[in-house]
C-alpha cells in the first residue's frame, strides 16, 4: 500500500464521517471535505499524528450558498492534503486562526478577512491585507457577484485620488 493510501486509511479510521468525502485525486494528493465542527480535531490529527507540517496555502471560496476555506497541507513536501472546511454561517462566516501552529498563516488569514469578509477569531491586529487603506468598508471583492462597478458607485464615480 502506498503512502497516500495509508494516509487515507488512517484518516478514515480516525474519522469515519469522512469516508464518503475523502478521495485520492492524484498519486500525491488527497482531497477531503469536512464541516466546521470537525476542523480542529482533523487538523490536529493531520499535523501531529500524520506529520503534515508544511502549510502550502489557504484558499477561501465563496460558493454562493456557503463559504468554504481550503487548507493545503503538505507532508515532507510530498503528499498534499486539501482540507476543505465548510463554514457554518453564510451571513457571518468565521474561522479560528491557526497562527499559533503556523505563524506564516497570518497573511493567508488576512487575505480571507479582506477579500472575502471571513472573520478570523484570534488573529492579531496589524496592517491591512492586500487592499488599500482607503478601501470602503463592507466591500469584499472575491465574493461572487461583486464587481468593480460597485466601488465606482460608492465613490460617486470618481476614481480614487
Amino acid at each position, binding site marked *: 500500500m502506498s503512502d497516500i493510501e495509508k494516509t487515507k486509511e488512517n484518516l478514515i479510521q480516525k474519522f469515519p464521517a469522512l469516508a464518503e468525502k475523502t478521495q485520492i485525486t492524484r498519486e500525491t494528493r488527497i482531497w477531503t471535505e469536512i464541516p466546521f465542527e470537525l476542523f480542529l480535531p482533523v487538523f490536529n490529527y493531520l499535523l501531529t499524528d500524520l506529520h503534515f507540517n508544511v502549510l502550502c496555502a489557504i484558499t477561501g471560496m465563496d460558493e454562493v450558498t456557503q463559504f468554504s476555506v481550503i487548507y493545503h497541507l503538505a507532508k515532507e513536501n510530498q503528499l498534499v492534503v486539501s482540507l476543505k472546511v465548510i463554514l457554518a454561517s453564510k451571513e457571518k462566516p468565521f474561522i479560528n486562526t491557526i497562527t499559533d501552529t503556523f505563524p506564516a498563516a497570518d497573511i493567508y488569514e488576512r487575505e480571507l478577512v479582506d477579500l472575502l469578509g471571513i472573520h478570523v477569531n484570534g488573529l492579531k491586529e496589524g496592517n491591512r491585507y*492586500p*487592499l*488599500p*487603506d*482607503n*478601501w470602503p468598508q463592507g466591500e469584499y*471583492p472575491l465574493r461572487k457577484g461583486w*464587481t*468593480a462597478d460597485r*466601488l465606482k458607485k460608492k465613490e460617486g464615480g470618481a*476614481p*480614487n*485620488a
Partner: protein
Amino acid sequence: MGLIKKIVTWGRTKSPWVLHFNTGACNACDIEIIAALTPRYDLERFGVLLKGSPRHADVLLCSGPVTRQIGDRLKRIYDQMPEPKFVVAVGTCACSGGVFKGCYNIESGIDQVLPVAAYIPGCPASPKAIIDAVVKLLKSLEES
C-alpha cells in the same frame, strides 16, 4: 538670452537623470529598465543616471498600472521633483493598464494620475525600446 537658453536646453538633453518608480508593475519592465543601464545597452552613454531621490531626478520612469494604494504616493513623488520634469510610462500597463485593465484595484495607466511625456508600449518594453524612447524624448526636447 537666446544663447543661454540654448546652453540650458543642451544641458538638459545631455543629462536626464531618472527616477524609477514601480507603480504596481509585474517587475518585467523594472528589470528591463535596469537591463538598459547594464553593459549591453548602457544608458549612461546618453548621460542617464539612475537616482534614488526624487529631488535629483528629471525624468520619472513609471512602470505598472498604478494601483489604488500607490496612486497618491506617485503624486507625492512627482510633487517632490523640481521643475522641469517629465513622466515616462514604461510598458503597456503604464500606458493603458494592459492586461490589468478592469481589475478593481488599479487606475489603468499613468496618464490617469500624472501628465505623461512619452509612452513606451511593450510587455515588457525591451531595453532597446526604452533607449529608443529616451532618444525620441530628448530629440523632442531639443526641438521645443
